[in-house]
């Protein structure tokens, strides 16, 4: 697990929830205030007929983007964590090596290729992008669930069993809470990657924040590109910092208790 480790800044200052709030406010301001920035974008693209993307409201695009990522994330978290739990139980043990191999192998699949392979079978629109996001987002979650559950020491589990806990109680009172930070790190990777990948959905006919970028690249209108890119970057930073803040509270709760 050497690779997936994040290096934390040496002085781990607890930002708390301030950072996600700042990014969130910036995101909201950008979504609502974009039409008023016409003069700025006019300076960027003086010759274009139109400098503000108007094919759809930015708030609608943001909503669709969040919907696609949210649906995919909900399904992946459910399926991924359940699969991770299933193969670490006694009955599902047979499947553990295969699932473990798949989860590490799946990391090598480029998201674009997954998306491109989903389109021929599912057609254009929102469905292929959701399926591609699910497939792609599943692997980090499964991998981290496995790593988290396997990282719980057998001594602790035996102690819990010896205390008279049922296997179910051991799972949801001991194993899952201890594995939670690692699982959450997997969810964070999965969702952050998916926010970026969802933008590619605009190339297969799904309408979301990738739309202005693709339209801008196709028409050579930089202002569109900047608008789309700015919003996606702000969204990614908001969500990522949310996870970061949540991880910090989780970690401090674990070390405190």
């Amino acid at each position, binding site marked *: 697990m*050497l*690779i997936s*480790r*994040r*290096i934390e*800044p*040496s*002085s781990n200052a607890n930002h708390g929830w301030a950072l996600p709030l700042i990014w969130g406010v910036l995101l909201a301001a950008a979504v609502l205030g974009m039409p008023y920035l016409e003069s700025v974008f006019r300076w*960027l693209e003086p010759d274009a007929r139109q400098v503000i993307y108007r094919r759809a409201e930015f708030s609608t695009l943001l909503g669709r983007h969040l919907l696609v990522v949210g649906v995919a994330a909900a399904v992946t978290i459910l399926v991924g964590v359940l699969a991770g739990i299933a193969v670490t139980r*006694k009955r599902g043990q*047979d*499947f553990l*090596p*295969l699932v473990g*191999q*798949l989860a590490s*192998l799946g*990391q*090598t*699949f*480029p*998201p*674009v*290729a997954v998306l*491109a*392979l989903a*389109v*021929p*079978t599912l057609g*254009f629109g929102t469905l292929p992008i959701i399926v591609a996001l699910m497939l792609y987002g599943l692997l980090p979650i499964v991998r981290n669930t496995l790593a988290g559950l396997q990282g719980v020491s057998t001594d602790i589990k*035996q102690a819990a069993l010896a205390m008279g806990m049922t296997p179910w109680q051991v799972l949801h009172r001991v194993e899952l809470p201890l594995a939670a930070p690692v699982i959450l790190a997997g969810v964070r990777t999965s969702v*952050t990657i998916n*926010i*970026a*990948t969802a*933008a*590619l959905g605009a*190339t*297969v006919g799904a309408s979301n924040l*990738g739309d202005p*970028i*693709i339209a*801008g*690249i196709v028409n050579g209108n*930089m202002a569109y*590109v*900047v608008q*789309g*890119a*700015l919003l*996606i*970057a702000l969204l*990614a*930073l908001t969500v*990522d910092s949310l996870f970061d803040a949540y991880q910090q509270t989780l970690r401090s709760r674990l070390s405190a208790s």
Partner: protein
Amino acid sequence: MPLTDALPIAKLNQRTWHPNAVLLSLSLVMLAVIWLLNPVSVAPNRIVPGTSYHLLDAVGWFGALLISLLISALVALALLPTRANYRAMLALVIVMLLLMPFGLMVASHWLVDPGLPQARLSIGAASWSLLFILLLCLVELRLRLGLSRLATTLLLSCVGVVWWLSASLWLQNMALVQEFQAREQQFWRATLQHIQLVSMAVGVSVVAGLLLAMLMRRYAKLQKIAFSLLNFLQTIPSIALFGLLLAPLAWVAANIPFLAQLGVSGIGTTPALIALIAYSLLPMVRNTYIALEEVSSDTLEAAKAMGMRSSQRFWQVRFPLALPVLLEGVRVTTVQAVGLTAVAALIGAGGLGTFIFQGLGQAAMDMVLLGAIPILLLALVVDASLGALADALRPGGHE
């Protein structure tokens, strides 16, 4: 010895009969898939969606019976998993993989009208699923038999050669083959371009990553700033970064003619390379830093006690010991770059992504596959070969 080991434990799971549940369920799914889904579809030309055909129409009763028998044999063998039976299952899986192009040949012979030169056979859902499940079986068998990475790679390359031969010799009606033949030169050029872009980006980021990591070890303050900056960059979606680089570079190209002569422009290779390097830096720097930091201090102290100078300690002890982890970073970075370069096609950088986006634009799905499949293969090959290299360089042999 822990006390629990000394206790007489009633072995709950001591069943005399223990079938391999994984292979059993995989082969049952295979049976269901080939009978319920359609293995091929035929279209009169490249744009019109094709009509799907059932297994019975595609390969006839005889073929359907043959493949069902092969899968049933797999089921039977999975019920009694001895080592000999695992070997037999491996042989069966390989035979099925080898038979797939022949099944397609039979299907194209029966279903494709020779009077229509544009008519084409596409691979349907059942065939893709069959292929996928067979590869899963192969992974499972490899783990059970303890086959080395090299042996599996050799087996798969044999299968690949047979597929390539049958595709180029007999499967002229297959859509993928037609797409390939229509733009063969373009395909090889795009592949070369893809590899060039990836290797340039990775090459630059390896050197820059090493320098940055060495600087970071010296100046602790730099470490904090650099890592937060790189983490921040990584959060920005690739497509957005590619897009954002278009504007400033276009401005530079328009206003500084010298740089424009060097090939800097808003669209094309330059912004793609810059974005690729920016993305590759984080995994590279992170791994290089960890690799250099994790060399045990005992070893370094021993080297110091032996009278090695500081530079000797770095180049003769620290660096060689860090090399496997460093290569692990190169592997992750390169695999990521292979995927990102595909996105770079959107801003005109070329590479295999061109086929994906052109195909999506023209609603020609086979062209999309022509781009996506080589990218997937490229990523897998890079992953396997760099992984093997890191294994070989690990001090003390293989793990």
